[in-house]
């Protein structure tokens, strides 16, 4: 497999503190605010941005999204696109930005995701097989899909409800070190996770992300440009992507997902083994997603994630391989598609060494995963600090 030389780096990050509800705020406003934070962090002006990657479903803008966002931001990019990979969109933007830079089409790419949460929340606009063949039977979107994946995993390997609850409790515990997290000040132990209401068996409420409004932005540029910035550049060492299906009934496998080949490719490109990765920034829409990802990464065998987590010393900054120190989306909240980008932003903080109270000692490398739809859209990134 082709080795990815560290020609590109992340030089800027921005993140909005999530909120449960917004009123009268447009998504374009939020995207511009979070983008300004990322440019300021990178130490550059908007005149230096010549690439723009945005997400779909940008609130009030159903089509011509890159052009609308460019115009609103006062940009005239030479490369612009929409990345539509659900929760994998954020990580998916990072390697696409690097690829566009390597292709000579631009030099500095702004990757931005976010959304408002004004009432009432809109209903799904799907008029395709995802709408035709599941909802008429009482299936309820993502909750039902991940409940089906979790029940299959439990049944296949004999894992217990407590095993999965460890992940939610670990995320809540990490959130206590992040004042921006939606569950800051609200820890929950395994017992409390299991006592939370059943939503779709075997998923309890605390095993499901809380939807919030917010935004995340990342600046990707050449490794040379990044050296001029105020922070330690964070290089993209490897990337992998895989898409297998859309609706859960069409999943080729219920207990292992497309992150398995995506992570293998990303690690292979980086030349690093999973044991050499210090920080695991793993997409966590539901507890089951983290369990399957730990197993698909090859950290342990199928069904062994809970034993592995215990041996790992939990998920906190002191663990052997810390997981989701920002609280994960289970602790931080899920700002729509920006949720996937929070895992990139936290990895950059940790590698820079400015994660504050939750800083991991000697964090040089991170694995970031993104996951979309029904464990069907996968992107993995390996990030490393500039030497």
């Amino acid at each position, binding site marked *: 497999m082709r080795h990815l030389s560290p020609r590109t780096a992340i030089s800027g990050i921005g993140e909005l503190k999530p909120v449960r509800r917004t009123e009268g705020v447009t998504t374009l406003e939020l995207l511009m605010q979070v983008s300004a934070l990322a440019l300021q962090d990178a130490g550059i002006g908007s005149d230096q941005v010549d690439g723009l990657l945005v997400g779909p479903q940008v609130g009030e803008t159903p089509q011509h999204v890159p052009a609308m966002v460019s115009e609103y931001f006062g940009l005239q990019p030479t490369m612009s696109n929409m990345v539509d990979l659900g929760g994998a969109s954020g990580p998916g933007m990072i390697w696409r930005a690097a690829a566009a830079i390597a292709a000579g089409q631009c030099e500095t790419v702004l990757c931005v995701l976010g959304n408002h949460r004004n009432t009432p929340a809109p209903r799904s606009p799907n008029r395709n*097989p995802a709408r035709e063949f599941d909802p008429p039977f*009482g299936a309820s979107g993502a909750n039902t899909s991940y409940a089906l994946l979790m029940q299959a995993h439990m049944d296949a390997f004999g894992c217990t409800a407590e095993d999965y609850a460890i992940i939610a409790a670990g995320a809540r515990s990490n959130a206590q070190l992040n004042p921006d997290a939606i569950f800051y000040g609200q820890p929950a132990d395994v017992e409390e996770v299991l006592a939370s209401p059943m939503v779709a068996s075997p998923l309890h409420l605390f095993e499901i992300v809380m939807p919030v409004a917010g935004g995340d932005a990342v600046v990707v540029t050449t490794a040379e440009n990044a050296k001029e910035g105020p922070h330690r550049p964070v290089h993209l060492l490897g990337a992998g992507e895989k898409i297998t299906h859309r609706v859960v*009934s069409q999943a080729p496998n219920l207990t292992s997902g497309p992150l398995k080949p995506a992570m293998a490719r990303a690690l292979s490109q980086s030349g690093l083994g999973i044991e050499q990765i210090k920080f695991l920034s793993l997409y966590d829409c539901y507890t089951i997603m983290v369990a399957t990802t730990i197993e698909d990464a090859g950290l342990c065998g199928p069904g062994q994630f809970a034993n592995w987590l215990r041996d790992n010393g939990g998920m906190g900054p002191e663990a052997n391989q810390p997981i989701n120190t920002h609280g994960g989306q289970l602790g931080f909240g899920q700002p729509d598609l920006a949720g996937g980008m929070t895992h990139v932003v936290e990895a950059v903080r940790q590698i820079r060494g400015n994660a504050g109270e939750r800083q991991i000692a000697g964090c040089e490398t991170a694995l970031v995963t993104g996951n979309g739809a029904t464990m069907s859209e996968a992107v993995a990134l390996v990030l490393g600090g500039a030497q």
Partner: protein
Amino acid sequence: MKDLSQLDVPGPTKTPLTAPFWENAAEGKLTIQKCGSCGEHFFYPRPLCPNCWSSDVAWTEVRGFGRLKSYSQIWKPGHPGWLPATPYLVGLVELDEGPTLLSHILVEGHEAKIGDRLEFIPQNIGGQMLPCFKNPDNKEEPA
């Protein structure tokens, strides 16, 4: 059992291509498409076979038996119209012919388990007869 026929819930968004699946099922015949070129059954309906892309596809009646691959008991439905039916069961049913579909699972008298043998049954949900699944009435299945 709750009266599912009285629910105010969204039905299928049929198209001319997919209508035979819903219309045949309402009449008690479970039909899916089969490729005349590679021989694979597939679901959901498409104009070409997703396996070999042949246009030689035809509707075929399947036996209507399958196995429960996974299930979930829904307590908090995404659509409020389903609230009166909670908790109810949805599951992934792998048909004997190969394809998997998501459906409403009608179980009476025992708990669902992965691997359960299931049988197709049309069920009125919100005024429409939809292809649901239940435990077989007896162990004697048609050959």
